[in-house]
């Protein structure tokens, strides 16, 4: 079990099926607590921030617990797999990440939901909004990848004096 959870490589499609099952179970579980909607990240994390700012416990619902659970769960999984370490990226990457995060927030506000809300939940509900959003997320990611993913000219490999180890 430990091997399966922390070492073995998971096929992305098998992982997708597991996530699909969890996303399905999320509906009745969330509804049982009086919150009648599926998985969500944007609204619950906005609620979490709202709670931290105002102390209004009304904001703490199933969705907020889900968001906290994702953080805690990812930490446990990464730690157990030996993949956790605090890594500081370079300035340019940090700034790009912050701008990207702000962009995603604005996008989520315009689209009425984040990537999870639109691509996972809304498509599962056969809502036309979800499919339009998903299509443009793929197009946007493709354009951004083409524009930004290229090797740096300066980062050439340095020869080493180390002899070969056969």
């Amino acid at each position, binding site marked *: 079990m430990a091997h399966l959870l922390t070492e073995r*490589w998971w096929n992305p499609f098998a992982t997708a099926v597991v996530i699909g099952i969890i996303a399905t179970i999320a509906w009745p579980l969330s509804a049982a607590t009086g919150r009648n909607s599926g998985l969500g990240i944007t609204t619950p994390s906005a609620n979490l921030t709202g709670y931290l700012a105002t102390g209004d416990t009304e904001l703490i619902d199933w969705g907020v617990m889900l968001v906290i659970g994702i953080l805690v769960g990812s930490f446990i999984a*990464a730690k157990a797999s*030996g*993949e*956790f*370490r605090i*890594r*500081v*990226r*370079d300035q340019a*990457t940090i700034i790009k990440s912050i701008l990207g995060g702000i962009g995603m927030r604005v996008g989520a506000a315009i689209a009425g939901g984040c990537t999870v809300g639109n691509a996972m939940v809304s498509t599962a509900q056969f809502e036309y909004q979800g499919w339009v959003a998903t299509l443009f997320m793929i197009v946007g990611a493709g354009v951004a990848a083409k524009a930004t*993913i*290229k*090797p*740096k000219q300066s*980062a*050439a*490999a*340095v*020869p*080493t004096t*180390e002899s*070969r*180890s056969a």
Partner: protein
Amino acid sequence: MKQVLETDGLVCPFPLVEAKDAISGLEIGNELVINFDCTQATEAIPQWAAENGYPVTHFDRVTDASWTITVQKA
């Protein structure tokens, strides 16, 4: 001969992008040591090596979230 490519600190997919770039300058039979610390590359780099028929001569986790892989140009 071996060449070392340090990509620690680079987010995925950049270690792979840099590796592709670096290996193009190597002669057949020479090895490229790629040090990286983004998890996704533990899958992406071996897959790229396999697709190109490059043998992976060494692959190890150095410490938490840090790996080294040696790919031979073929």
